[in-house]
């Protein structure tokens, strides 16, 4: 379970940058030392936990009313996450009635069983008052295919294990958990002892409800574990690595996007060998399957010159439809990617630069607004994401504001065609990203003097002129023999 990659991801809390500049007035002292328990200054009441498992990663929304039971105003609310889960948390956001709250990620303490996220309320809650609080988080890599081996045309079932009660550092008065599945086929679920007169859980179609429960203390640590197994005959797509390269060209008026994917399927593996005959004969009916058959990229309208290649060369099983209303790119890998299989490929496309770049009135300051992540519209999780933005040669004073926390950000010189000094490039790395974070915008500002633009033709001009001068000088050399 703890692979080398997971330890790398644990560095995220230690080096996280909240680059949404306006909000960063937060106190960034790391959350707890060993043996920390948050002071019992809050009490939760009316907690509704909605667990959405319609995608192959888990999204949890906890809506509750928090009461300040201490005598002073309090502004810090702690959310506990067990040690084994914290590295799978893609994002944790908090929101109140007055807008989003700042969340500090925990500095990972290996000895401590519970890691705490700190929510800083926008306005401190006065003693005795209540406020509504919503916490949303996404957890990846927690659905296991059970059975782990299936036939090619069999249904796939995924299993989720969670806790009966919502994880909370404070006493919770009344709570209920609702779990939502993609369909109503849930063959196994943990049945707990009856809650008063009603069954626990109660199920209605695709929704299963555990609770309502009365007073729960934090030392009950979530109560009993509940396990539910549901049908999900769709691929569980994970990109172990994704590299996105954005290159801005002022001469060509073009912005080029290139994405490299290393894709795998985390679903159930095949019991027998893959039968191409059976696959081809059933594919006409297009049944639901656990293999990745195709990926659909809904690009921003105006995309041109799309290409799809892999290590072998161009992959012709793709369709690209581009007009003023849509730019629809559909890719089919060379083979259906079943559970445990891998496939890597490269996709790229161009746009006119005027949709993404704006220039200030004096013609020297530029602002580039591009989607941070643009990918398939299928449900995807990414382990490692690397975004590189390459700006024209001679750009200075480069500032960027990414929409999600990053592991690292570096600026370096990128050398490509017709470059003399090299272009400024920014490389940003993030980890454990889910596809809900597609379409968030990345903003890069830079200063590009017009003189820097003319550097390219000027270099060639000087080169050719030197050649002419040399040829004229050589023509002056007199090689006549004798007088």
């Amino acid at each position, binding site marked *: 379970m703890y692979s080398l990659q997971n330890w790398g991801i644990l560095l995220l809390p230690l080096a996280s940058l909240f680059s949404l500049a306006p909000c960063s007035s937060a106190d960034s002292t790391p959350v707890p030392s060993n043996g920390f328990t948050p002071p019992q200054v809050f009490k939760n009441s009316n907690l509704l936990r909605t667990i959405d498992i319609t995608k192959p990663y888990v999204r949890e929304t906890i809506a509750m009313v928090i009461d300040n039971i201490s005598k002073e105003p309090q502004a810090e609310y702690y959310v506990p996450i067990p040690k084994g889960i914290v590295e799978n948390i893609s994002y944790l956001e908090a929101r109140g009635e007055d807008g989003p709250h700042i969340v500090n990620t925990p500095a990972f303490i290996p000895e401590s069983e519970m890691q705490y996220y700190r929510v800083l309320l926008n306005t401190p809650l006065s003693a005795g008052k209540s406020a509504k609080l919503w916490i949303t988080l996404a957890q990846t890599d927690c659905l296991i295919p059970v059975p782990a081996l299936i036939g090619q045309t069999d249904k796939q079932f995924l299993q989720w294990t969670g806790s009966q009660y919502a994880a909370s550092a404070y006493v919770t008065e009344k709570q209920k958990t609702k779990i939502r599945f993609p369909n109503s086929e849930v063959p196994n679920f943990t049945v707990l002892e009856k809650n008063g007169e009603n069954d626990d859980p109660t199920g209605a179609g695709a929704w299963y409800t555990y609770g309502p429960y009365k007073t729960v203390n934090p030392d009950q640590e979530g109560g009993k574990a509940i396990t539910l197994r549901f049908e999900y005959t769709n691929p569980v797509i994970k990109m172990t690595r994704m590299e996105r390269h954005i290159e801005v060209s002022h*001469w060509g*008026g073009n912005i080029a996007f290139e994405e490299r994917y290393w894709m795998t399927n985390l679903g159930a593996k095949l019991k027998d060998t893959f039968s191409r005959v059976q696959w081809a004969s059933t594919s006409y009916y297009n049944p639901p399957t656990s293999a990745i058959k195709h990926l659909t990229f809904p690009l921003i309208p105006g995309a041109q010159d799309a290409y799809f290649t892999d290590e072998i060369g161009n992959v012709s099983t793709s369709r690209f439809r581009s007009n003023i209303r849509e730019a629809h790119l559909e890719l089919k890998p060379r083979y259906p990617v079943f559970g445990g299989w891998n496939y890597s490929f490269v996709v790229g496309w161009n746009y006119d630069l*005027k949709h993404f770049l*704006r220039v200030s009135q004096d013609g020297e300051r530029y*602002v580039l607004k591009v989607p941070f992540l643009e990918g398939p519209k299928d449900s995807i999780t990414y382990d490692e994401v690397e975004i590189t933005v390459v700006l024209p040669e001679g750009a200075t004073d480069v500032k960027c504001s990414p929409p999600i926390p990053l592991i690292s950000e570096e600026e370096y010189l990128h050398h490509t065609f017709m470059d003399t000094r090299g272009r400024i490039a920014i490389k940003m790395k993030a980890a454990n990203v889910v596809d809900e974070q597609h379409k968030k915008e990345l903003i890069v500002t830079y200063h590009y003097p017009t003189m820097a633009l003319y550097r390219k*033709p000027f*270099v060639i*001009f000087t080169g050719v002129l030197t050649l002419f001068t040399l040829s004229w000088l050589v*023509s002056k050399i007199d090689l006549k023999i004798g007088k």
Partner: protein
Amino acid sequence: MDSQWDSMKPFVPMVGKEAHLPVAAVLMLTGFLLTGLFSINKSVTTAPLLAIPASLALGFGSVYLICAVGVYV
């Protein structure tokens, strides 16, 4: 950020994408023509008249030519 974005003008390149190939062709051809003329009569007087415009045309022409074939530098 958004108010700043709205007050700025969208970037328009000097030569649009459709015009890259014709502009590149015209510039490169004049460049080669002037190079040829210069190579026939090389002297200090003809140099500024022929060599410098030739180098300019070849310089800009090669940038637009490389954009026309799809490598947007």
